[in-house]
Structures are given as structure tokens and as C-alpha cells.
């Protein structure tokens, strides 16, 4: 001891009180590094030592930890907001105004709560993408991936329930649409298909969700409790399981020497949290959380847009019947995500980002994930597709939910441009059936049987015939109804004398208009061109199926029939959604199959 008289701090450290709180000294010795972690309730979920490569920032980008941190920020700001907010329809909106204009720092807290929620959705999604791409869901971590998906769903549900609370127009109509999807659910929804006989508007799934037949005080208090207590409670339970299992299932990255978690990981976490806090503060200072006019149950804003993370779903709802787009597809997406670790039998690619390599596929250079080409491509396609839907909903939809390019000015009185029509069910069924049949493999046994019956070339020929045939059927069944029955909805009006007249009265979609122009300009040659076009599209579709023919067969042999059916079914549905969007926007086809009696419109 150099000092003759101990400093205040040193004296303090010797008191009984200090020693009762802090059980160890703070010297940077190997022992205190360990004691800091396992002696501290807040830190003890960490391991004491960890592989150096696992905490390199470009491996995880800290996304899981940041999701947790944002949950904490949301909890704290949410608790503070609760001191002023009263969940009653006559008070809620006024309280929001008070928070914005008369409560000191109210606006800042509200902004932080809103922006942290948006950030949490982004970060949770990115965390999922990271875990997928680094293969961190593979055995033994399958179950934790499932818990993670549940947490993602709960994050979105928290956003959804929180959305109603400001009781403004934005809130009310987003929740109206969301709640109405519950009414469209099969069996249990008043307006859904296969409705059970005792289900009415006063006891269906929607009624249970909003606590009445219209959104009012009962809904507000219900969503308030869900948002502030019920869902956070469940979320915390699953979060505990999630974090616990991260430890118990061991980390996906085990390479590199082991380093002490204190200070190496703890300091990184601290810095990441600081960085996000700074971003949140700046964001909240420069941008106010939106607050529209007070909720009016009778008037819908035009256009009425959900928050960005639900805009993909809102856009999806345009293309299918509500129970399909609002209930079946989201359920399939969630189940499909949960199924990933159980259908992905490829053990490669754990603990590292995919190794990308340039490769030639025919004439095209392809950026190619070497170890898990199929898994990575499909997952990224799905993610990109979802964000593409969000982009369309955000930037390409204007008043009356009509298509406006981002650079086009909105006009509330613009005439509705695109006319749509249904394909007759038979043709639509052909399109849909052939499309899903494109996913069938030719298993080994079938190939052997074919070879034994008709020589060594038979399997290839059969596969070619199958795929090309299906491609041609899809193309022909899409075009022929457009050419010959212009008004499937009103068959009596469709007795036109010539094919040309028919085409002219068909939809005004880009493809049909182009065909009309072709015929007008070139006469019979135009028809020939159309026929050639149909052939080319059909052959291209068939060729695409055939190009993957060999791959499909190998996939079938690796996965077996059940896993193959799940994987291929989900993949075809995912791509099919894209196909349906193109059919709607380019061909003016409303539904492929429409059975109004069963609310089945697809």
C-alpha cells in the first residue's frame, strides 16, 4: 500500500454492506473473470469461457442479443407509457395527444417505443436469417429453432396488439382487417369456409379476439392486456427456454481458442447495446411516431395500409380468398419455418456462413452456395419474396389499393385500370394441377422399370415428355380461356363472333392487350405469333422442370417420400404465390379456381 490514508473508495470497499453486496474484488485476475459470470444472476446465462470465433462480430452480428435488448427497451418504455395511457375508447386517443404534447418527454418515449418495436421486428427477422445461413438450427438445435419461430410469431403479435392502442385511424383499420381474418378462418369463423352450424358473428373466432361484434372498448382493453401482460408473459417464458437452450445445446461455432466471456463477450454486448441505444435515440429525436386522426369506425382512410411488416400479408390478401391468404398461408409459412430443421437432412454448413462461389450454369454465371445450394436458395427466395410483397404494398399501392408506380402521383378519382376475370374452374384446375405435378420426381424404381420395359433411353424420354407436356398444359390452359371465353363471370355476354372480338373484350391486362395489338397489326400472323408464344412459354416451363429433373430425383432419394413432399409442396406453394401475382398483374386473371359456395378462391 503506497497511500498512508486509504481513499474513501477503499474504505467503502471494506464495509460490511459493500461486502455483502459484492462478493468478489474487481482486480482483473482469472478468478474474478470467472466469478463475475457465475456469481452474477444477470450474467450467469453466459458460459464462463467461449470459443473465440463464436464471438467475432461478423459471425452473429449480435442479432440475438440485440433482439433481447430491444425487448428490454420496449418493456421499460412500455411501462413508462402505461403511467399515462388509459385503455378506453373515449380516453385513449386523448392520452396519446397528451403524451405527444403536454407530458414531458412523452413524445420521446412514445417514439422510442414505436421505433424500438419496428427495429425489433427487423432484428428478429435478421437473427432468423443469420441462424439459417450459418446452419445453427441443425441437430442438436432443432427445437430451439422452433422456439425461435414462436418468438418471431409472438413479436409480430405484440406489434399487432400494440398497434390498436393509440386508437387512431391507422390502428383501427389495421386491426379491423386483422380481426376480420379470424372471421374468415375455416370452421370457427363466421365468414369462413365449412362454418360449423352453431357459429355466428356473436361467437366466432373474431368475436373471441375482439370481445364483441365490432371493435370498441372491449377490444381495446383486450388488446391492452394482451399487449402489456399476456403476450409479454408468454414471450418471457419462451425467451427463457430459448436462451437456456442456446447454452444447453452448445454453440454452433466451436472453433478457435477459448477466451473469457468477461470481458471479451460482455464488452461486445455492452457496445452493441450502446450503439443501438444511440441509434434509437437519434431516430426518436428526428422522427415522430405516426398518429392519425381519431379512430372512426365508419370511415376508412384511403388507402389504408398496415404497418410495413404486415404489408406483405395485406398484399397477399389481394390475390387469394381471405381464409387462404390470411389463415392458411401464414399458418403454412410458420409451420414450414418450424419444419426446416426436421426436413433438412444435410449435416453440412454448421457454424459458418455459406461459402459462395461463382459457377457457370449454362451461359449464365451464378453465385452459388457451395455446401447447401438448395436450402440456402429456397430460404433466401422465400425471404426475398416476402420482402418483395412488402415493397409492393409499401411503394406500389395507392388509393383504392390500385397499382401506382412509386413515381406516379396518386389520384383518388383515377378510373380503375385493370379489369380482371376468373379462369373457368376446369382450366384453372389444369393449370394448378399441372403446376404441382411439375414437382414429381421419377424415383429409381420407376426408372429401372422403364429401362427394363423399353430400353435405356426410356426414363429420359418419359421425363422429358412429362415435363414438356405439363409445361404446355399450363401455358395452354392459361391462354385458351383468355382467347375464347372473355367473360367467365358472365358467360351469356361472351357470345362474340370472332376470336379477335373476343380478345378485344377480354381483360385489359398487359399480356391480353399486347395479344390484341398483335392481331390488329398482323392479322393471321399475329395469331401465329401468339400460338408460338404459348408454345415457347410452355416449353420454357417444362424445360425448367426438366433442368431440375435430376436434382429432384436425388432429392427424393435423400429425403424419402414424406420429407420430399413437404419440401417440394412448400417450395411450389411459395413460387406459386409469385406465379399467381404475375398471372393477376400481367394476365388479368383474378382466380384460377373459384368455388364461391365454399369460399374457395385461389
Amino acid at each position: 500500500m503506497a497511500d498512508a490514508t486509504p481513499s474513501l473508495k477503499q474504505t467503502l470497499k471494506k464495509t460490511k454492506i459493500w461486502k455483502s453486496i459484492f462478493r468478489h474484488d474487481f482486480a482483473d485476475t482469472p478468478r474474478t473473470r470467472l466469478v463475475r459470470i457465475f456469481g452474477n444472476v444477470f450474467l450467469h446465462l453466459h458460459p464462463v469461457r467461449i470459443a473465440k470465433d463464436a464471438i467475432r462480430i461478423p459471425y452473429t452480428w449480435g442479432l440475438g442479443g440485440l433482439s433481447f435488448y430491444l425487448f428490454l427497451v420496449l418493456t421499460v418504455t412500455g411501462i413508462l407509457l402505461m403511467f399515462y395511457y388509459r385503455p378506453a375508447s373515449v380516453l385513449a386517443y386523448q392520452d396519446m395527444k397528451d403524451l405527444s404534447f403536454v407530458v414531458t418527454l412523452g413524445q420521446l418515449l412514445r417514439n422510442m417505443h414505436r421505433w424500438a418495436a419496428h427495429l425489433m421486428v427487423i432484428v428478429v427477422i435478421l437473427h432468423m436469417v443469420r441462424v439459417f445461413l450459418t446452419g445453427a438450427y441443425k441437430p442438436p438445435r432443432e427445437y430451439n429453432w422452433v422456439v425461435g419461430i414462436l418468438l418471431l410469431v409472438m413479436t409480430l403479435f405484440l406489434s399487432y396488439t400494440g398497434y390498436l392502442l393509440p386508437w387512431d385511424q391507422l390502428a383501427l383499420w389495421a386491426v379491423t382487417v386483422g380481426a376480420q381474418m379470424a372471421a374468415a378462418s375455416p370452421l370457427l369463423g363466421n365468414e369462413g369456409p365449412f362454418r360449423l352450424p352453431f357459429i355466428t358473428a356473436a361467437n366466432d373466432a373474431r368475436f373471441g379476439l375482439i370481445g364483441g361484434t365490432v371493435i370498441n372498448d372491449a377490444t381495446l382493453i383486450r388488446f391492452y392486456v394482451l399487449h402489456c401482460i399476456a403476450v409479454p408473459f408468454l414471450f418471457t417464458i419462451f425467451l427463457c427456454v430459448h436462451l437456456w437452450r442456446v447454452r444447453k445445446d452448445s454453440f454452433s461455432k466451436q472453433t478457435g481458442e477459448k477466451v473469457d466471456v468477461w470481458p471479451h463477450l460482455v464488452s461486445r454486448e455492452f457496445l452493441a447495446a450502446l450503439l443501438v441505444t444511440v441509434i434509437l435515440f437519434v431516430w426518436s429525436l428526428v422522427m415522430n411516431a405516426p398518429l392519425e386522426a381519431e379512430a372512426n369506425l365508419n370511415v376508412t382512410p384511403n388507402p389504408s395500409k398496415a404497418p410495413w411488416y404486415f404489408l406483405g400479408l395485406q398484399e397477399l390478401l389481394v390475390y387469394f380468398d381471405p381464409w387462404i391468404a390470411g389463415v392458411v398461408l401464414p399458418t403454412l409459412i410458420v409451420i414450414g419455418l418450424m419444419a426446416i430443421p426436421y426436413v433438412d437432412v444435410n449435416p453440412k454448413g454448421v457454424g459458418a456462413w455459406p461459402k459462395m462461389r461463382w459457377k457457370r450454369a449454362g451461359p449464365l454465371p451464378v453465385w452459388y452456395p457451395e455446401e447447401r445450394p438448395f436450402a440456402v436458395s429456397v430460404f433466401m427466395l422465400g425471404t426475398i419474396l416476402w420482402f418483395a410483397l412488402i415493397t409492393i404494398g409499401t411503394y406500389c399501392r395507392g388509393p383504392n389499393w390500385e397499382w401506382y408506380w412509386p413515381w406516379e402521383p396518386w389520384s383518388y378519382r383515377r378510373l380503375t385500370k385493370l379489369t380482371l376475370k376468373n379462369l373457368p374452374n376446369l382450366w384453372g384446375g389444369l393449370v394448378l394441377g399441372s403446376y404441382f405435378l411439375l414437382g414429381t420426381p421419377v424415383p429409381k424404381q420407376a426408372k429401372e422399370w422403364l429401362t427394363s420395359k423399353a430400353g435405356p433411353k426410356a426414363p429420359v424420354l418419359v421425363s422429358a415428355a412429362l415435363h414438356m407436356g405439363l409445361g404446355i398444359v399450363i401455358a395452354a390452359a392459361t391462354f385458351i380461356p383468355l382467347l375464347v371465353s372473355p367473360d367467365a363471370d358472365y358467360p351469356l355476354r361472351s357470345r362474340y363472333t370472332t376470336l379477335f372480338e373476343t380478345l378485344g373484350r377480354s381483360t385489359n391486362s398487359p399480356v391480353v392487350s399486347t395479344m390484341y395489338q398483335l392481331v390488329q397489326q398482323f392479322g393471321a400472323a399475329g395469331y401465329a405469333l401468339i400460338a408460338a408464344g404459348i408454345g415457347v412459354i410452355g416449353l420454357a416451363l417444362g424445360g425448367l422442370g426438366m433442368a431440375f429433373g435430376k436434382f429432384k430425383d436425388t432429392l427424393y432419394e435423400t429425403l424419402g417420400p414424406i420429407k420430399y413432399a413437404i419440401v417440394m409442396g412448400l417450395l411450389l406453394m411459395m413460387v406459386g404465390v409469385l406465379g399467381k401475382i404475375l398471372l393477376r398483374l400481367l394476365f388479368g386473371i383474378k382466380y384460377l379456381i373459384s368455388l364461391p359456395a365454399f369460399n374457395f378462391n385461389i
Partner: protein
Amino acid sequence: MEPQSATHPPASSVQPPAPLGGRQADLWRKLEERFGRRDFLLKSGWAFFWVFLGGWLLSNLRYLFPNVLYEPTLAFKAGKPEDYPFGISEKWKKTQRTWVVRTQDGFYCFWARCTHLGCTPNWFDAEGRFKCPCHGSNFNQNGDVIAGPAPNPLWRCAITLADDGQLFIDKARLENRPGLREQGEFFLPFESA
């Protein structure tokens, strides 16, 4: 074969009837293993536990469905019929969420709620269409879907004449099936003078 074999659980005190063939004895033992007294009590105990738990959870689900609703009444008086011009009247849209339509023959009334996901459409006079702002459904003057994802025509409300000569509109009674929606309480014949 003796019925009391080595694998027989000592817990069971039930004696099987004495002379039995091999297969029968086997069956008896299996039955006893499955439905022995201890086992029976244990299983029924657990069964009661799960039934109670399940019933309790389900009853809590029922608890979430209120019995009394504090919602605004769905019926209202909409003034004298002769005061309405021909065509679609937006007079009640902001307060009652309805459009009153007067034709040469009489009145009908739309509930201004899209049959797709429940937003309020807007009336565009120049095009003669109702257009929904949420997912782009379009309806014509009869309420039939002409574009967008809506699965059904717009709902029509019951419209009758009250004793004091005013229109009486009830949004609790709805109809949208062609043929049924143009008659009965869903259409009010009214001769134009």
C-alpha cells in the same frame, strides 16, 4: 401353462379363473396388466387430472366470450323517404355506415362494409362503383363484386317504413343473395310522385 407366470406383476391380486387354455391365460394376463387395480387407479387418477386441467382451460376460453355486449344499436331512423334524391345517398355513411339507395321503384340500403375484410368502401359517382381502400375490391350499384378480392356482394340492410313515416333501417338483418335481397324487408317499394 400356469396362469401365474414369472412375468406376472406382483401388484395384481386378482386371481384369474382357474382352468384356462394357453392363449386365454395370455389374454387374461395382458388384460390384467392393462386394467389391473393399481394401474386402473393410477390411470384414472391421471385421466381425472388431465380432464380437469383441460376442462378448466376450456372454461377459461369460454370466459373470454362475453355474454353482454355494450355496443351501439344497429337500427336507426333515416328520415322521410321523399327527402332522398335518386341514386346513392351518402348521408348516413359517416354516422351509421350505410348507403341509402333510391331507385325509380323504391329504396334499398347497403351496409358500408366490404365483404372481404371489413373496411368501409368509398362511393365513386363518376364510375358508378364502390371501391374499397384496403385491398381494392370494387362493387357496382347493385353491390355485386366487379373487381378485387371480395368474395360476396355488399350486404343490404332491412329497410322498412316506421309508423311515423320515416325510413327504419336495421343493420342486424342482412341479405346479399341475388333474388332474396330485392324483396321482403330488404326492398321498400316507393312510388315516385
